[in-house]
């Protein structure tokens, strides 16, 4: 028996398809959740929950490709397995180019479905680790005061306390205090770590290759 490593989010406008796929995948040992439309899914989407999408390509209203697009611009792009008819070749190509994990033709057989699910869950686990790092760094950065953010930007650009103090018009001692608070709040054990975290959090100027 396989170890389920995430939830399978099934989005299909057809109730019978939703129910049967959910039954089958639960019988295979997975956790499932079903949604009747793309907006229904988006309304409840929690990027922090591991798992992948099993998505109908052709739905009335917001279609599968539009949902894929919406996820691509959100904070976490969840892996997607598309279910479709054979006629949707051009759409399939578009979806694959946009990062879909797989494309299965309805009716879909167990081996194809479970193989695609395993692959999608593996991709989710790998991408999730990177996402958590980024997300964690950004969350910690958000706890800094405006002054601490200023100090952090100066620190990661390679300036020493004395320079920073002169730039910000304050005492070196004060900068030291800010700096240690920044290190603590960002959970950084060293300057190298702080630079990496700032880069993950998307702080401008933290990228060493960026020159003005």
């Amino acid at each position, binding site marked *: 028996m396989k170890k389920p490593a995430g939830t399978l989010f099934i989005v299909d406008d*057809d109730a*019978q*398809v939703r*129910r*049967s*796929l959910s*039954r*089958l995948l*639960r*019988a*295979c040992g997975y956790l499932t959740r079903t949604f009747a439309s793309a907006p229904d899914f988006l309304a409840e989407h929690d990027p922090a929950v591991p798992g992948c999408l099993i998505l109908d390509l*052709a739905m009335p209203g917001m279609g599968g490709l539009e949902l894929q697009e919406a996820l691509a611009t959100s904070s976490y792009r969840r892996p997607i397995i598309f*279910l479709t*008819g054979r*006629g949707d070749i051009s759409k399939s190509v578009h979806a694959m180019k946009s990062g879909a994990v797989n494309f299965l033709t*309805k*009716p*879909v*057989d*167990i081996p194809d479905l479970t193989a695609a699910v395993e692959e999608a869950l593996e991709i989710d686990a790998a991408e999730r680790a990177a996402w958590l790092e980024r997300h964690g760094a950004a969350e910690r950065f958000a706890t800094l005061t405006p002054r601490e953010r200023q100090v952090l930007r100066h620190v990661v650009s390679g300036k020493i306390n004395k320079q920073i103090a002169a730039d910000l018009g304050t005492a070196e001692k004060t900068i030291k205090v800010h700096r240690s608070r920044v290190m603590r709040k960002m959970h950084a054990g060293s300057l190298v770590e702080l630079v990496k975290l700032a880069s993950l959090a998307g702080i401008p100027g933290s990228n060493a290759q960026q020159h003005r």
Partner: protein
Amino acid sequence: MTAPETLVHELRQPLTAILSNAQAAHRMLAAGSPDLREVREILSDIIACDKRAAGILGRLEDMLKTAAPKTRFGHGE
């Protein structure tokens, strides 16, 4: 007006549900001590889906009958 392609596409839905339902029941029975109420629900859904598929097929047949004889033997264009 419904195009034949739309009906063909529509036919995939009950066929998908029938296959997944049957495979789910198969797994449940193989795993031992199946929830018989769920198996019964699955069988009811399979019957409903099959009837739905037959309905779509009927509409497709009507469409082919009303199509001009010329196009019946032609190949698309």
